[in-house]
């Protein structure tokens, strides 16, 4: 055990920090759930890419720097510590990217990955269908082979920011006789293709954060399929492991708001201390963020040593989503009556982004597999309890 950073790691941290100080926009970008903000974020991603800081773990030839997971953690610490903009293309970069690296042909990798890293292509995911929810295998959208094309009909939903994106990836039933996990193929579909209709879904905050995507005889060439025909489930699952879960929510993403929560608490301490549970909640949030970060470093060490990481990723999901709720609930308690004010309300004061974060945190225990499902997974796969 050695909990110090190597000179190389320190130098990397210094480089990232210096670049961010120079480049992070002073003014906050507009919400990426709006067209305007989406394009602002695309520009920012392009800038990151030009500095080879967009996908630091990707190989050099794809525009990354071949960093290991520890360096990635350092990058994330600096990134969130600098209050840099939220990452807008993560569905592509974190979900599809690793899948392509493992299952894509050389041609597919070259075609899609650099443009993804640069956010020239913005990707939406097409996992959910209207009647599926947490049941990912409930796919009824069909992709019927017709020569060297698939003809897609069906509907996907809960596709984050699909209203603004360029491509969607997802599972489609290529064998119409199949059911559940069988007979699915993993396809990439341009959102400007003929027959694609996008209907925005307004989120809680009134913004077009999601969309439904309707496919009406949409033709995509077979070279847009990742992995073998009918093997889509295997492809989708193979990269759904722990590492990806960790990448989705780096510890820094919670350490930074906790730091701000402590500042908020201190700024309002006299009033807040009249309810002793607030100070306790602030400290619990800090302890939670510490534990989450320590667990990440510990896991990164174990992965480096070759350990298999299994159902722990489900614990991770529960921990970060509940931590995020706790952080924002506590901030709202401190803000009291002003907490309900929208950004830009004249009397908002330091309400800042806490309300938006509070709303977003409500989704945490639901998406990426509802926490109830994660608890089942822990109990069945990690503890070996019998299925219902």
């Amino acid at each position, binding site marked *: 055990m050695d909990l110090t950073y190597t000179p190389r790691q320190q130098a990397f941290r210094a480089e990232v920090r210096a670049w961010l100080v120079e480049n992070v926009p002073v003014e906050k970008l507009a919400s990426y759930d709006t067209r305007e903000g989406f394009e602002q974020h695309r520009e920012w991603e392009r800038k990151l890419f030009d500095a080879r800081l967009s996908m630091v773990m990707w190989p050099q030839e794809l525009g990354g720097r071949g960093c290991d997971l520890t360096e990635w953690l350092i990058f994330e610490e600096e990134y969130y510590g600098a209050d840099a903009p939220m990452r807008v293309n993560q569905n592509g970069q974190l979900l599809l990217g690793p899948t392509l690296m493992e299952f894509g042909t050389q041609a597919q990798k070259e075609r899609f990955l650099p443009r993804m890293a640069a956010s020239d292509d913005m990707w939406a995911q097409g996992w*959910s269908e209207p*009647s*599926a*929810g*947490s*049941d990912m295998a*409930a796919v009824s959208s069909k992709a019927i082979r017709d020569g060297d094309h698939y003809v897609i009909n069906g509907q996907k939903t*809960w596709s984050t920011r699909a209203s603004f994106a360029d491509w969607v990836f997802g599972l489609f039933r290529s064998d119409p006789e199949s059911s559940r996990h069988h007979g699915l193929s993993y396809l990439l579909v341009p959102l400007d293709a003929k027959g694609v209709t996008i209907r925005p*879904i*307004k*989120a*809680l*905050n*009134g913004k077009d954060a*999601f969309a439904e995507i309707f496919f009406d005889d949409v033709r995509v060439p077979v070279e847009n399929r990742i992995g073998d025909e009918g093997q889509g489930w295997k492809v989708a699952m193979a990269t759904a492991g722990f590492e990806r879960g960790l990448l989705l929510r780096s510890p820094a993403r919670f350490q930074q708001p906790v730091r701000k929560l402590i500042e908020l608490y201190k700024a309002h301490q006299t*009033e*807040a201390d*009249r*309810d*002793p*549970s*607030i100070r306790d909640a602030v400290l619990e949030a800090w302890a939670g963020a510490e534990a989450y970060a320590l667990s990440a470093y510990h896991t990164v060490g174990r992965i480096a040593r070759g350990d298999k990481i299994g159902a722990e990723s489900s614990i991770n999901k529960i921990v970060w989503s509940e931590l995020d*709720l706790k952080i924002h609930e506590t901030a*709202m*308690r401190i803000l*009291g*009556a*002003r*907490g*309900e*004010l*929208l950004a*830009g*309300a*004249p*009397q*908002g004061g330091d309400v800042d982004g806490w*309300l938006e974060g*509070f*709303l977003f945190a*409500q*989704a945490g*225990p*639901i*998406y990426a597999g*509802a*926490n*109830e499902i994660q*608890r089942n997974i822990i109990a069945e796969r990690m503890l070996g309890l019998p299925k219902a």
Partner: protein
Amino acid sequence: MDFTFTDDERTFREAISRFLMTEAAPEALREIWETDSGRSPDLRNKIAEQGLMALSIPESAGGLEMGDVAWSLMTQELGYYGIPDSLADTAYVSAGLINALPDSVSDRQGWLEQIAEGSLRIAIGHPVNPLVADAHLADFTLLAHAGEIHAVPRALIDVEHNPSIDSSRRLCRVMWEPSSATRIADAATGQPLWDQALNRGALSVAGQLLGLAQRMLDLSVDYAAQRKQFGKPIGSFQAVKHHLADVAGKIEFAKPVLYRAAYSLQHGSADAALHASLAHTACGEAAHLAARHGIQVHGAMGYTWEVDLQMFMKRTWALESAWGDRTFHKARVSDAVLSDGAALGPGHLFGRS
């Protein structure tokens, strides 16, 4: 000892509930929120026709002369149906304050009559609330100045709008100048009335939060019974059942806390402030949990604008901190319970008279 409601009270509640069910459906509310004022004079008139505005107005002013106890039922209906702030602020909180004014206030009787008939809209700017709800369209706003009470006509105030996450809220910063023309009570008379108004406001919010909790529970139960996953209604999964059972438990146990507080306020108990604050926190907790478990049970659907749950969740998050936030009310409870000589333990449940 009789901790129940009269038949009159219960019958009136049911009538109001039936009325609002048809007249204040979510689609109608959404339409109203889209308007500039955010309020519907038409709906308000209809509500007045039902007699609700007259609930706690003295019979001598054309009212029904019921009190806080009756309002503890009605505010639940207002919450359940997401009725905007101005109604309770006028008919319950302001009416209570005006009713308690000395007879020497010349407008008192007229105001009570106008409230009862539904022709007056009053906003109330208690110092505990940083902003005033609905001041932009109130005929006048009751405002505090060093304990004094002022009734300030719309023409004499400037308002600055502060948009809330709850689309039904219209929150205003009110700018005004106190003058002897607007003063209706001096500090000696006014301060106790402001204190009472705070308790009444807290109870108004508590009742609404409880109604909101029940609404979110009902929506969630309906959803869980219908929505299928893994081939079964999600409501058959134990985790979902237990989420919703916990909400039901919080609601059931918050009710009598609210009712005691209303009784204490109506009867001028020395413990009215303690009881009101406990009601605010208990009902707030029930509603907060109903929102959290509600959205969890609804899954991604609960995170959308189009599913009605969001209307009631957002109103919950807003009202939780209205008329005293949780910190304020917990501190009042703490101060009272931990004070020297506090009457605690078995036999002290209904407080000092």
